[in-house]
């Protein structure tokens, strides 16, 4: 007897809704990570840009920037870390825009899987990718003179905070990826959001040198709060005044962006 075109049956596992959402998200995460591993160039080149920023600010601009009470390289690295994980979230929008463009989302939407899974899987794999990038940037930082003046635990706290922040905003970029007509436009849409937020912040220079109106923005916007938290956690100084508002911001952004992105996924046409 010849084999039938239809495979022999297998029973689906009985799973609770929550368990299903979790396992679906893990399947998508695995799929995305395989994709990243098959294109190692992507991870390589997305690390090159922050490395160039480290070198640029450390050796070209750094000498001209005064940072009271701290070596510039120590001041700089908090900004680089946060900038890097933020720019990494562009991958979330590009990845989803590509999936949409290539018809994969169409297949996923026709499967009886959790509606949150494609987004949760994408943001989770980008979170894991960010961990790798943070390790690379930390090593590069050490090579150019960056030192942690607190302790390892505080540094790990700083890493967790920036990952939390990156995770929250990657849900916002998930929305952009689903709203963009293609991955190129998704990328173009991301830059005008990322640039002002990273540069009009305390990432590279103290806000005190900026004109009053810009300074007011730079000192209070969430990116600066996260950067100041990371700086305090790695270099010392009062932490609670930065970390608490930063955590509130991250939580608020996550609570706003997750439903927004899932809503967009449900209705994407």
């Amino acid at each position, binding site marked *: 007897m010849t084999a039938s075109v239809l495979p022999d049956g297998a029973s689906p596992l009985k799973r609770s809704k929550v368990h299903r959402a979790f*396992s679906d998200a893990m399947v998508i995460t695995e799929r995305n990570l395989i994709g990243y591993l098959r294109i190692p160039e992507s991870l390589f080149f997305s690390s090159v840009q922050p490395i160039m920023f480290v070198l640029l600010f450390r050796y070209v601009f750094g000498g001209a920037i005064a940072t009271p009470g701290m070596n510039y390289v120590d001041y700089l690295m908090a900004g680089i870390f946060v900038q890097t994980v933020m720019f990494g979230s562009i991958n979330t929008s590009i990845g989803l825009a590509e999936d949409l463009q290539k018809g994969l989302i169409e*297949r996923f939407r*026709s499967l009886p899987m959790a509606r949150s899974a494609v987004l949760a899987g994408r943001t989770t794999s980008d979170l894991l990718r960010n961990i790798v990038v943070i390790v690379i940037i930390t090593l590069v930082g050490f090579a150019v003179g960056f030192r942690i003046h607190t302790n390892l635990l505080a540094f790990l706290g700083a890493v967790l905070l920036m990952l939390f922040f990156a995770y929250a905003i990657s849900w916002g970029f998930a929305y952009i990826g689903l709203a963009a007509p293609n991955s190129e436009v998704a990328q173009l849409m991301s830059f005008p959001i990322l640039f002002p937020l990273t540069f009009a912040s305390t990432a590279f220079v103290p806000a005190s040198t900026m004109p009053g109106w810009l300074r007011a923005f730079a000192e209070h916007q969430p990116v600066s709060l996260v950067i100041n938290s990371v700086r305090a956690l790695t270099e010392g100084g009062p932490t609670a005044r930065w970390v608490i508002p930063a955590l509130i911001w991250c939580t608020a952004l996550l609570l706003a962006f997750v439903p927004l992105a899932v809503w967009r996924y449900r209705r994407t*046409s």
Partner: protein
Amino acid sequence: MSHAIEAEGLVKTFGTDVRALDGVSLTVESGTVLGLLGPNGAGKTTTVRVLTTTLIPDSGRALVNGFDVVTQADKVRSSIGLAGQYAAVDENLTGRENLRMVGQLLQLSRRDASRIADELLEHFELTEAANRPSKTYSGGMRRRLDIAAALVHRPPVLFLDEPTTGLDPKSRNAVWAVVEELVAAGTTVLLTTQYLEEADRLADRIIVVDRGAVIAQGTSAELKADLGETVLDLEFVDPDTAQRAAASFRGTWTGGVVLDGSLLELSVDAGPSEVMLALRTLESAGIVATRMALREPSLDDVFLSLTGRRAEITEEES
């Protein structure tokens, strides 16, 4: 006979003025193949998207396997397979990984998903390429993988959205053979196509859609019967001459007359004597045809007589 798919008055508009579906109703009996035929932009894909729950209609109702596509979407999803014209496989994943992923998303255990992936790869002659990223696959291999991915859970209803668009004739035949095999095994298939030959060969019933509405339906033979048994093609040096020729037939010719550029198509019902009549009519009007041919009517003629436009889309345009 029970209906695997029933749709009633589906309407879907995009933006304010694009009416992609303008009241589409259709039924597909279990175990049969329905061909949804029409040119690009006719509403074929939109219909499939509504029936596969990826698009919610503005109004109208549809049941697939007895489940409502809006209110019981998850039940519909568990009982259908979808293979799309864009060959929705992940090109970074291997063929095996793609199929296993779909199995796992259908809540199969990793082991079951792997086993079924291997069975499907074997059947679709992809075993050799199973561990290569699917971006290295040829168009035909990708399409086979895409169809295999739609079969992981043995769905009783399969949607194929332009399954052979862009394929070479050999790959097209391979896809056709798969569809025929599935139908023989009892699967209900809804197939969209712009290829008249494809609908002719695979579909038990054909629905012709144009601008979001059903403009004709029936078996291939029924649709052709409206055109008479034979078509007489007459070609002229230019459209003006063809137009004058068409005018000379007006009032005297009992069958259909379709003008298409410099080509005139006459339906012939009464056999050879009518062909003689056609030639005499031309002669008395003093018009010379550059080419003449008698042939069986094709579905293209059906479309042309229904809409005044040709359905066949060339590869470059699609």
